[in-house]
């Protein structure tokens, strides 16, 4: 199988050649075109055989489109709303008003930040109770103003800290789940990168759950599962496979409704194209949901979660 390192090396070479062309005016058009073709072929080959662990790594790729940068590409006129109104504003879970396909919506998203300083403030996208309380506030606001809710999920999980525990991170997540389930407006969740356990599901109990092709959604990180169940840190790739955290597996299981394709090589290869596909998918699903009567939409949502996974049970033997 085509090795990721080979692809990376070829990408680097092509970039160097381009710089040469630009700087020195050497005409390498033909050579470059051939190399590009070869790269695409390698990517295709590699991509077909992606393991779940490969996807975990793609979902965590530093260049992956996510957070504010992605939201701004997907929506227009993003207007950020801040604060939990109780003492805090968490930069790791953000939200606000925006327009999407000519209509106003409320968006919520995990944010990891670009600059070093911002990344530190965002704790790798692990949100605090104040983040989830802000999210619940904005969910209620969406309902009040009859705005569809769109969430973008990308977090390793909620922040495991002493103060987070003292301020009831568990209760804040539970409140988000309860609030999101109770909304009258249409809701769509998009799992962009990592969908890590409680911190992810707090924003994911939507009418429609969409998932990028190489995103992950899991009850525990593969590393965590490896440590606990395999008692072996190096078993993370096996754990990733076993946990059924990939978009295709979750589509099969009925957990997600649609897998949004990524550009060949992963979303980071072309963030703008990725955003446009996400955007188109969101607009389609929102239109479908908007066409349903409120009661019907709420009933479908209730049934979906009330019966989640029920197929995975069987009558007791004997």
């Amino acid at each position: 199988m085509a090795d990721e390192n080979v692809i990376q090396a070829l990408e680097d070479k092509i970039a160097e050649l381009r710089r040469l062309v630009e700087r020195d005016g050497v005409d390498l058009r033909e050579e470059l075109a051939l190399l590009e073709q070869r790269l695409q072929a390698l990517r295709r080959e590699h991509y077909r055989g992606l393991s779940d662990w490969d996807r975990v790594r793609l979902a965590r790729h530093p260049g992956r489109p996510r957070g504010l940068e992605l939201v701004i590409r997907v929506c227009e006129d993003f207007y950020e709303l801040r604060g939990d109104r109780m003492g805090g504003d968490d930069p790791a879970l953000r939200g606000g008003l925006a327009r999407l396909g000519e209509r106003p919506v409320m968006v919520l998203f995990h944010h990891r930040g670009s600059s070093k300083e911002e990344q530190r403030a965002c704790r790798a996208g692990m949100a605090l109770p104040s983040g989830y309380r802000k999210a619940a506030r904005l969910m209620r606001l969406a309902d009040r103003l009859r705005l569809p809710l769109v969430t973008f999920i990308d977090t390793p999980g909620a922040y495991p800290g002493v103060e987070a525990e003292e301020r009831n991170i568990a209760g804040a997540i539970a409140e988000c789940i309860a609030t999101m389930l109770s909304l009258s407006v249409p809701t769509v969740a998009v799992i962009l990168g990592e969908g890590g356990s409680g911190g992810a599901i707090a924003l994911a109990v939507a009418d429609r759950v969409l998932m990028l092709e190489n995103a992950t959604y899991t009850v525990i990180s593969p590393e965590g599962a490896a440590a606990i169940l395999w008692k072996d840190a190096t078993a993370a790739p096996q754990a990733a496979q076993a946990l059924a955290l990939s978009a295709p597996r979750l589509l099969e299981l009925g957990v997600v409704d649609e897998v949004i394709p990524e550009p060949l090589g992963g979303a980071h290869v072309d963030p703008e194209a990725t955003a446009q596909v996400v955007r188109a998918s969101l607009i389609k699903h929102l239109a479908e949901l908007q066409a349903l009567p409120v009661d019907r939409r709420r009933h479908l949502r209730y049934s979906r979660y009330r019966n989640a996974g029920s197929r995975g049970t069987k009558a007791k033997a004997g």
Partner: protein
Amino acid sequence: MPIRRDDRDRYVEVELRRGEEPLWLRCGSCGELVFRRKLQENSYICPRCGAYFFLTAEERIAALVDEGSFEDLTLPLESDDPLSFSDRKPYADRLKEARGSTGLSDAVVVGRGRIEGRKVILAVMDFRFIGGSMGIVAGEQLAFAMERAVEERVPFLFVVASGGARVQEGVLSLLQMAKTVAARERLAEAGVPYIAVLTYPSTGGVMASLASLADVTLAEQGALIGFAGPRVIQQTTGEKPPPGFQRARYALEHGLVDGVVPREGLRQELARLLRVLEGVPSG
């Protein structure tokens, strides 16, 4: 009332598999050998050092409801191992073992009973069953219990003993958080009281969903209450949790529970609460 600082939590974990020696148990805290019968009479509190022993769901139910009043309503369901999960050992084998050693089909027992004469629908977790983890079957039992409570218009009592979600059922376990919260919304709409009793441990996904949404939340003395465990916190953030962190009294001081109750007083405390709630739900 100001919190009495001297009223320290005490708790100890003991050997879980006690089936092997039916007559006596050894206290993991002080080493004392205690006759099972004697321990039972003492609410499973070590008569020598006061440590709390883990309770099975059966023992917990016996300690809470009026004798002879319990009726088991647990649905006859088992996990179908939907991911065909296997780590060092197949999940199917773990399930078989857990069923064998506990006699339960999964981690939640549901039933109807009376506490000093007042009806409740109970759901009680058993920590022995894969750490009281919530998978599809547990989620189903909890949702069913709440639906029964709505139907019968009887308060719902949830006794929590869980480390979190059932890892071996992947995201399907995570979704049980949504399932139980959805069922709880119906309970709330119906005005049926929901009482949670948090014991050692009440953490992870169960805490980040149903267990945090009770109308009245009591912590058994010694309970451990939180989302992430101290080890995860220290590993991820380098923070050193303070003494008493996530224990019952700590939770009370931080506004997470309505009260802390010693194990031997729990039954009376629930009776007192049910008495004041007499007539609720109304109509």
